[in-house]
């Protein structure tokens, strides 16, 4: 397809070669990719290494899943970084985890919606890297506009008309968005046209999946149901692989259908160091120290991520690092108490910011 982008946005973003923008909105090629897949209900189980190696290619549009550090497929993302994949375009609402991918050259371009740590403020590492050109923002979004793009893709529409973004500078800094008159109205009724968005690859971490890829999860879906349908390649990582009968029995919880899915990886703690609904709490030390170091320098951050991502090799290494089975016990209890599925007696949710010299035990 031959796309007609928002010219003002291209100018503001200094994008000359628009070919790097095409795949995200090329619904015909996404449909072709989906048609070419083997649609049979077959065993799709792979190891994490195999799944990442086979389904993530350099230059892909990679979609961050769920919500930053809640049920996001962080262990798969770390494996993508470990395997040295390069020049991915990162998208996601929010797209928090892209920031350390930039350090390793894993991410070179960003479709930006939100990079930060909420209460902890802005992501200073990402901020520095935008400024020094290590990463380039190629489209700028609000959460809602991006969510509509993903949803339009899931619904099989080339795009949708939105009442969000109007009057803002976002529409001047996003080549995909266009302010247009509502064709149904004789009166002036500006809307924002949002094209359907089709990432190349998304990894979604779930509570349970069967070997075909039918998946269920708890907590907010955020954009995962939409991006599973939209993305050309979908990897499911699951706390547990269950039988197809188990999925049928708990049918209310099945949210991603098997035919969206290319690979299924059994990966307990696949959302760590993030939070997993019904399973485990954030590894708070990790996040607090990261935000602390992000404010310091990229060198500190690189040291930190070398230690946590490169040296841990896999989830075993990570869990050992934060205290092994003791952490598992405490973390599970804290998550269940937080969700109201267990008593809160003796469970602490107190916040602590990391200070130089603090160890894992100080902020568990």
């Amino acid at each position, binding site marked *: 397809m031959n796309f007609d982008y928002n010219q003002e946005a291209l100018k503001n973003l200094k994008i000359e070669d628009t070919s790097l923008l095409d795949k995200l909105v090329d619904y015909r090629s996404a449909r072709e990719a989906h048609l070419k897949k083997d649609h049979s209900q077959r065993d799709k189980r792979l190891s994490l290494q195999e799944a990442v190696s086979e389904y993530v290619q350099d230059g892909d549009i990679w979609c961050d899943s769920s919500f930053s550090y809640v049920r996001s497929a962080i262990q798969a993302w770390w494996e993508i970084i470990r395997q040295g994949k390069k020049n991915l375009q990162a998208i996601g609402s929010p797209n928090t985890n892209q920031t350390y991918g930039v350090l390793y050259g894993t991410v070179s371009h960003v479709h930006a919606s939100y990079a930060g740590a909420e*209460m902890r403020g802005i992501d200073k590492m990402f901020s520095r890297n935008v*400024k020094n050109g290590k990463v380039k923002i190629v489209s700028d979004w609000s959460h*809602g506009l991006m969510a509509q793009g993903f949803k339009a893709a899931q619904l099989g529409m080339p795009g949708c008309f939105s009442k*969000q973004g109007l009057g*803002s500078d976002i529409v001047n800094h996003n080549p995909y968005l266009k*302010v247009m008159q509502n064709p149904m109205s004789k009166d002036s009724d500006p809307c924002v046209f949002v094209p359907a968005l089709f990432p190349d690859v998304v990894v979604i971490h779930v509570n349970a999946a069967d070997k075909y890829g039918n998946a269920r999860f708890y907590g907010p879906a*955020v954009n995962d149901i939409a991006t599973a349908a939209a993305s050309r390649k979908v990897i499911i990582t699951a706390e547990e692989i269950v039988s197809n009968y188990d999925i049928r029995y708990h049918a209310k919880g099945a949210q991603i259908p098997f035919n969206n899915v290319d690979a299924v990886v059994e990966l307990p703690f696949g959302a760590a160091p993030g939070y997993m609904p019904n399973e485990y709490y954030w590894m708070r030390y990790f996040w607090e120290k990261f935000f602390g170091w992000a404010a310091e320098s990229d060198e500190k951050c690189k040291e930190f991520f070398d230690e946590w991502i490169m040296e841990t090799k896999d989830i075993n290494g990570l869990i050992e690092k934060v205290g092994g089975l003791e952490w598992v016990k405490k973390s599970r209890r804290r998550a269940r108490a*937080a*969700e109201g599925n267990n008593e809160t007696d003796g469970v602490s949710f107190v*916040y602590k910011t990391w200070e130089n010299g603090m160890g894992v035990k100080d902020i568990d």
Partner: protein
Amino acid sequence: MTNDKPMNPLEMLAYVISKQINDHEVIYIGTGLPMVAAILAKKTHAPHITFVYESGGQDPEQLEMPWSVGGPMTWRKSPMIMEMAYSFGQAACGMVDKGFLGFAQIDMYGNANTHQIGTEFTNPKVRLTGSGGNNDVASLVDKLIYVGLQDQNKFAKKVDFITSAGWLDGGDSRKKAGLLNNGPVAVITSAGVYDFEPETHRMRINTLHPGVSPELAQLASGFELVRPQGAIPVTEAPSKEILQILRNEVDPSGIFISLPS
């Protein structure tokens, strides 16, 4: 436990924000002070309000302050959890009354910036967080309220990037741009409470906090604040009882209402 320390400015802010919330409203809320204020409202004058979050959580059973809007405190025992697109969709469809947003910069028409300091997008002085849900909340909730600290940089003559559309250039420019809702109705800062003049939609002093003169408020602004006719009322401060509820029941760990030591 009683705690008779004098009220601090954050506690004042939390109380003032809480007074913006009416009972039975559905409100879009993020983390931070607006959350403290909303919980205070729920425990005092507005017990039947419903909280909605962009991640999809809705009407959670309240336990602790949420660390993240995706975290369990925003959907603890929620009767339902929506997808992100549907969560904003209900605001577009007219089912959400109010939203609260922070800002890095805000101008005289209530246009707010959380994108960048500096005007060059590809080479900003500082890249901030970007929109997140801010633009959506500002575009969709019926009444929008901004909350933040006030100084000459934050109250900017011109914002470096319009993340969230306020009254744009004033007058009827917001309506002409096609935006749906009422737009910003109030700005609550460390100095006072502002509203918008009905015709021009310029920011106007509504009340000032105890000890703040109009001159001081003006000094802490990069643009001219509209002064109403007559004497400017002093913002009502919380009673001792309200302060106790705030300290003991709403934010007992003092995450948001303690001043940094």
